[in-house]
């Protein structure tokens, strides 16, 4: 069919595919320090423009500028940097462990470390985090033992999840880290419900949740946004826009003509959009949102604009769908490098210290790896008894599971 005035179907396509030059020419960013910092009790309607800007503190030379600068003491900054370094070293080793056949699957957070580390440091350990699978930095910055994370990844006999979950699907209630789900976005309304329960109980704890740009398309995100806005739940909803959902670029998720922070505008929710590779900016917006939530002023949607530096997971090869060197040309750089540069520029860090910290992290990870592997890697015989498979389906095992368990024994 081809007629005058014929309609045509628009299929979004990215600027660059394998073989093309990376092309980020579509993006424009405000200057670091240029965005004002509103009061935490500003109304959502006053905050609409924040959905379309980008809160930046660090410039590309490492200076912290403007009203959003969180003025952290050097010790805090160094801790943040070290957690990021550790997260990256951990990812690196676990990625290789999967390649070596020690486990079935792994997902790095390469390039996105500032987000989970800074946010973990801002939130109280009593607050509850409802993460997606790419916020390992939350646990690391809460000093959760990385050997436990490895035990989980290896499904070995000390795996706290008893071999039941895909690697990286951690859970730790005492660290305020909710059990990760394989189903995208389901955690978002759960976080809102947890926050509602906290408010219902006159508690002081808030909830935070993370999901990817791609996952904002899920209905659960809409449910969460609606409930959070209606009941003014004390929750921070973080959209980590790393520009990709497996192979598809953010245009397929609805980012071609607007931002993800703008979704918040639609619900009358406070929206902030931040440079996710800027540790200080992420820290500052999280402080703002947490304060707002604690003051009963309701939820905030934060879009963290970043770039997924690695593959989606160990199951894909990104050079099949995007230029192999695209990540290196992301104009907002690398979050580790940027915080390092800042610390050096304020005279609180040096290249040598940095190298030493990296080596220490690699060593720490290696050490933990050795310890974890003592308890086995995936597939090791007898890590978990077959009997254990029937436990925890219910609090008490009903007859039919007892019978099935017995069947297996015989």
């Amino acid at each position: 069919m081809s007629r005058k005035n014929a309609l045509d179907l628009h299929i979004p396509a990215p600027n660059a595919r394998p073989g093309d030059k990376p092309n980020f020419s579509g993006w424009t960013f405000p200057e670091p320090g240029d965005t004002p910092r509103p009061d935490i009790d500003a109304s959502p309607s006053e905050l609409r423009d924040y959905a379309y800007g980008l809160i930046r503190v660090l410039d590309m030379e490492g200076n912290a500028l403007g009203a959003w600068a969180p003025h952290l003491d050097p010790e805090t900054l160094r801790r943040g940097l070290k957690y990021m370094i550790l997260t990256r070293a951990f990812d690196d080793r676990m990625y290789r462990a999967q390649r070596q056949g020690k486990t079935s699957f792994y997902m790095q957070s390469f390039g996105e470390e500032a987000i989970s580390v800074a946010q973990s440091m801002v939130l109280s350990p009593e607050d509850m985090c409802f993460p997606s699978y790419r916020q390992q930095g939350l646990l690391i910055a809460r000093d959760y033992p990385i050997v436990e994370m490895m035990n989980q990844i290896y499904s070995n006999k000390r795996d706290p999840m008893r071999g039941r979950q895909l690697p990286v699907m951690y859970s730790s209630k005492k660290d305020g880290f909710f059990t990760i789900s394989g189903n995208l976005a389901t955690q978002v309304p759960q976080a809102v419900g947890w926050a509602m329960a906290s408010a219902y109980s006159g508690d002081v704890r808030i909830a935070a949740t993370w999901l990817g740009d791609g996952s904002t398309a899920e209905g659960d995100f809409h449910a969460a946004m609606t409930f959070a806005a209606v009941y003014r739940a004390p929750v921070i909803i973080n959209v980590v826009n790393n520009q990709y959902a497996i192979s598809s670029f953010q245009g397929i998720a609805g980012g071609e003509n607007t931002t993800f922070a703008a979704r918040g505008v639609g619900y009358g929710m406070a929206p902030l959009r931040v440079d996710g590779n800027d540790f200080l900016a992420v820290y500052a917006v999280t402080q703002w949102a947490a304060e707002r939530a604690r003051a009963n002023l309701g939820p905030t949607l934060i879009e963290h604009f970043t770039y997924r530096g690695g593959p989606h997971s160990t199951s894909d090869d990104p050079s099949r769908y995007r230029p192999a060197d695209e990540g290196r040309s992301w104009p907002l750089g690398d979050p580790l490098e940027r915080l390092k540069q800042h610390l050096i520029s304020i005279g609180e860090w040096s290249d040598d210290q940095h190298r030493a910290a990296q080596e220490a992290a690699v060593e720490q990870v290696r050490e933990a790896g050795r310890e974890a592997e003592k308890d086995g890697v995936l597939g090791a015989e007898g890590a978990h008894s077959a009997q254990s498979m029937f436990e925890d389906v219910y609090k008490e095992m009903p007859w039919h599971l007892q019978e099935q368990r017995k069947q297996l024994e015989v």
Partner: protein
Amino acid sequence: MATMTMIQALNSALDTMMARDSRVLTFGEDVGYFGGVFKVTEHLQEKYGAKRCFDAPINECGIAGTAIGMAVYGLRPVIEIQFADYMYPAYDQLVSEAARIRYRSANDFTVPMTVRMPYGGGIYGGQTHSQSPEALFTHVAGLKTVIPATPYDAKGLLISAIEDDDPVIFLEPKRVYNGPFDGRRDRPVIPWSKHPASEVPEGYYKIPLGKANIVREGSEMTILSYGTMVHVALAATEDSGIDAEVIDLRTLLPVDIEAIKTSVQKTGRCVILHEATRTSGYGAELAALVQEHCFYHLEAPIERVTGFDTPYPHALEWEYFPTPPRIIKAMRRAMEA
């Protein structure tokens, strides 16, 4: 003791639990000020305030998802899905999340929530106010599925569900909300007040999950059913003259296999009743279980009398509904086999 309809008994269960335990709260579409489209939550907002009984946006996924978060926090939310036909948007949260959080976190997090939903046909509700989706829950490890048939059971089972530390799907047979409908369209419906199981204590009591109720002892065959169909089974038994043992399962998952075994091994014949569509309905599981556990006692094929494998047709609902004549035919087939 008071005389209650099933609606009043359910309301009384919620009232009792909200009075006893501040962790219990309830929400859902039109549940707050209005008290629910079937009035199960009537007066609870007045009595306990809007924070403990409130309206929800029309998003069943959000209702279930936020309730999971609340349960994880430590509350005991009771949510209402306005009609079981509208549970589908919540299905992922129920089967992928509520059902598995204990397991996947190795007991780190748990979800003590109750999901109430009116189900079943016979009220001229058409395709989307008549469904019986129980089999979609009994297939899911980690959920319990409960269906009461009387006011007394409704209250006792709902209290057990609320106190249960695992997620419970609580399906309410809306056709018997106000009276024990027995499937005989030509006779006036009897009010609950004439039925002994409408005697309901005002206060706290429980009926354990997982225990069936033999509502009529009999020797010639066993009828397995639940919800509205229990009353229809009794009417069919009466009209047939066959001495059937009628079992009200009350809990579908975990089912009371002992009660089933004992009865079928005694009678040697079994008829299964439900309103849901036949293929892959819960009756299939019951038939499979019965033949697995009672094969050598069976004297006739197990009969299933169910809704047909069509959407629920508005004007033809009395052709669709398994009424006593259809049941009696199956009973006779079982007897004559």
